[in-house]
């Protein structure tokens, strides 16, 4: 185990102004950048979701044209996945991992800066085509779904911008992940053995591994798209001996692990928060670690459950069905462990705990529908309907996003030194938790009743639930504005937070002052 003490070229150097953010090598600054970036993206992607829900409020076309609608769906999915959820968890990793393991900073601070600063440029490249030439309202941007299936995406005339945006996103993620792995494996304070690491650190270690394994595969997929479109190759064309379905295999080899990339850090967050407010150690720490690893492993071998209807040989369908439903086992372990942690605890319900408990309930519902989707014959009916949309919003919004919001409330006092406004925060929670169910629960009914996804208009028998869903969506959207307000208010002032903040919070980050000083753990703490 290594002793990590740090030197700086200029000691106590605390840069200011814009260059502080542009050139920073400080993990806290970079974490902050990531978090703000993701918040802006959440609002952008959310605004697009509002356009979607506005068009779907009533049957008939009222707000936008079909192609614009498809563009909204596509950009919403892409921005939420690559712009909001992933950078948010990376931001949390930046802020928290060094503090949790007693390191002075990330292992490669300059590269850390680069990982972040590639992102805004990638985002720019992704959205720029929306505004290029022609009229904006006919939808110039990508409009082929966030899964950009070939050959539809091959028809898109500005495809190259999209492809290189994905390359940049991948580059950023890979560098970020390398940094996180090196930090966790090489920068732990003496005595911090692997099995003593906070679960958030563990989940991120495994997530980073997943990222390094699958982002390059996505890069390979878009590279083949690039040569198919511009240089005459035939990877995805039957006439030349290729297969459009090959694209789907490569995409989902990335895409399925990707969904766990979004949820594993969320598992980590919840595993930090629930013990704190239960005043009881996490139940089954070791099994949590093994379950995370098992989920990561399984995530590599189930990808084709997104493709049950493409006409795979039946042996393939059977295999992917069996493998898929297996994921319920390690996930069950996690859910049961959280339950057992709360059991016979001494519970209080500060805002972070509320979000965490809502996570456990609602993520589980999303997991259940995932299990249903995994049953191949039934998936023939569910596939590409709103049932799938309902499934993944339960795991992504009430799963990943709820956990991220929980994390923000949980660590915000540590970051800013101020307590957030508990009353407003509770309002934020209750409005969100109720409206999100009004928003997404009816989508199960819509899907089962036969409403396909990615359509701008629908038959009238779907009208009622779409109306309900849209209303829920608007309320949920507005309540996130409240969140923005609460965060800004906390940054600007509020009751002083104590160092430990929560009376039974456990972990190194709670041993440093609030707000956490610019440099922490320049001399490594000793872990017993």
């Amino acid at each position: 185990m290594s002793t990590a003490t740090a030197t700086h070229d200029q000691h106590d150097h605390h840069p200011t102004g814009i260059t502080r953010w542009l050139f920073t090598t400080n993990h806290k600054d970079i974490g902050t950048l990531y978090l703000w970036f993701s918040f802006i993206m959440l609002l952008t992607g959310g605004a697009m979701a509002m356009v979607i829900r506005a068009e779907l409020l009533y049957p008939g076309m009222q707000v936008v044209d079909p192609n614009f609608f498809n563009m909204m769906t596509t950009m919403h999915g892409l921005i939420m996945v690559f712009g909001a959820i992933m950078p948010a968890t990376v931001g949390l990793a930046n802020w928290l991992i060094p503090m949790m393991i007693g390191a002075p900073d990330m292992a490669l601070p300059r590269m850390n800066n680069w990982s972040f600063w590639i992102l805004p440029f990638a985002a720019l490249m992704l959205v720029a085509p929306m505004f290029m030439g022609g009229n904006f309202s006919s939808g110039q941007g990508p409009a082929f779904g966030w899964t950009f299936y070939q050959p539809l995406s091959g028809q898109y005339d500005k495809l190259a911008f999209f492809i290189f945006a994905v390359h940049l996103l991948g580059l950023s993620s890979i560098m970020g992940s390398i940094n996180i792995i090196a930090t966790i494996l090489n920068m732990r304070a003496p005595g911090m053995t692997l099995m003593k690491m906070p679960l958030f650190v563990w989940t991120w270690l495994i997530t980073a591994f997943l990222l390094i394994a699958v982002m390059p595969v996505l890069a390979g997929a878009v590279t083949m798209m690039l040569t198919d479109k511009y240089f005459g190759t035939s990877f995805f064309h039957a006439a030349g001996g290729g297969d459009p379905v090959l694209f789907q295999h490569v995409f989902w080899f990335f895409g399925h692990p990707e969904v766990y990339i979004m949820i594993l850090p969320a598992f980590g967050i919840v595993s930090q928060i629930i013990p704190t407010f239960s005043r009881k150690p996490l139940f089954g720490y070791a099994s949590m670690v093994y379950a995370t690893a098992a989920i990561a492993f399984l995530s590599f071998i189930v990808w084709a459950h997104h493709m049950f209807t493409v006409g795979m040989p039946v042996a393939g369908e059977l295999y992917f069905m069996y493998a898929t439903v297996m994921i319920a086992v390690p996930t069950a372990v996690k859910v049961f462990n959280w339950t057992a942690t709360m059991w016979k605890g001494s519970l209080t319900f500060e805002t972070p705990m509320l979000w965490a408990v809502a996570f456990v309930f609602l993520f589980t519902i999303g997991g259940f529908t995932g299990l249903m989707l995994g049953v191949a014959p039934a998936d023939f009916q569910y596939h590409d309907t709103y049932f799938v949309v309902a499934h993944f919003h339960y795991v992504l919004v009430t799963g990943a996003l709820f956990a991220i919001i929980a994390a923000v409330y949980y660590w915000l006092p540590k970051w800013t030194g101020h307590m957030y406004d508990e009353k407003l925060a509770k309002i934020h929670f209750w409005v969100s938790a109720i409206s999100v169910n009004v928003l997404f629960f009816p989508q199960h009914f819509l899907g089962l009743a036969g409403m396909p996804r990615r359509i701008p208009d629908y038959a009238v028998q779907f009208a009622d639930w779409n109306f309900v869903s849209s209303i829920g969506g608007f309320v949920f959207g507005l309540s996130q504005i409240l969140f923005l307000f609460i965060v800004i208010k906390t940054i600007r002032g509020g009751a002083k937070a104590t160092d430990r903040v929560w009376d039974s919070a456990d972990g190194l980050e709670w041993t440093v002052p609030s707000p956490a000083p610019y440099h922490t753990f320049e001399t490594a703490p000793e872990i017993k």
Partner: protein
Amino acid sequence: MSAIQTINKKLVGFFCLALLAGPTSAWADYALNMTKGVTKISEEVYDLHMLVLIICTVVGIGVFGVIIYSLINHRKSKGAVAAQFHESTTVEVIWTTIPLVILILIAIPATGTLLKIEDSSDADVTIKVTGWQWKWQYDYLDENVSFFSSLSEASNKARQRDSGINVYDVKHYLLSVNEPIVVPVNKKVRILTTSNDVIHAWWVPALGLKRDAIPGYINESWFKAEKTGTYRGQCAELCGKDHGFMPIVVEVVDQDKYKQWVVAKQEQAIAEAAASGKAMSKSELMARGEKVYKGNCMACHQDKGQGLPPMFPALAGSKIATGPVKAHMDIVIHGKPGTAMQAFAQQLNDADLAAVITYERNSWGNSAGMVQPSDVKAAR
């Protein structure tokens, strides 16, 4: 109906629904659940769906029950003191094993159903279904019947943005076509899906059948409808701009009716072929061309030929539509690979093609001469 009125109607509907939510019969209208459908397979799939749903509900009630119990009884405000246990191998083993067993129980019937779904041997009727942006082509391979099926005109008009048409007044809004497919009841119908451009998916919930239509490959699937009637579905794979507007209508009829229908279709085809060779006057061409244009081209090039640039070029004033007629015929007949502009050689006969090309060359300010069916024939 004003927006407020509509909202009120909706809200009333919603509250009524909430009140009626108890008895299952009231749910039927609102279709909260998967359809049982009209085939053995769709019924099996429904049962499988219900099985997993019920298992999940039971497990959910169990898990949530425990959590809720803790939330209520183990709270600090009630004086609960935290226990400090944090491990138990026995418990962990139990709650790893139980889900595993449940999953195996689910997998067994699922495997059986899947094997049946994938067995398309010994079919009575074979229909090749080809997806096009944005319509379906049906070829009855043994009967020599072939036609295109696209969104009905009434729906198509109503779905234009701000069309001013109340979609509630349109019968089967978005789920009706100009020409449904007709199949015999109680016969095994094999569906061969493929596509001409991008991936589509042919889905009719009541038949329990959804299968992707992949360009360059053919997927096999089948159904055997056990009840006559009209069953509706939609394209279920994002296929571009009008993905939401390529419905499927299947009419399941008894054997005799089916036979009659086949004969009628065959005779119709012969008559059309005979008619399409003749020379036509300009007004004839223009009238027919307008119809063909509305049915086939307007989706992309728009009603006034203005297109949706840069994705879909304008035809009004276009170099091709006002330039040499050869290039114009070429792009319409053979399409342009790699773009959404498809080859219309198969979809339209000589007369239709001549008409639509003439129409394009003489509308929206264009004025570039006419084309006769014989010209098209030569250019094919």
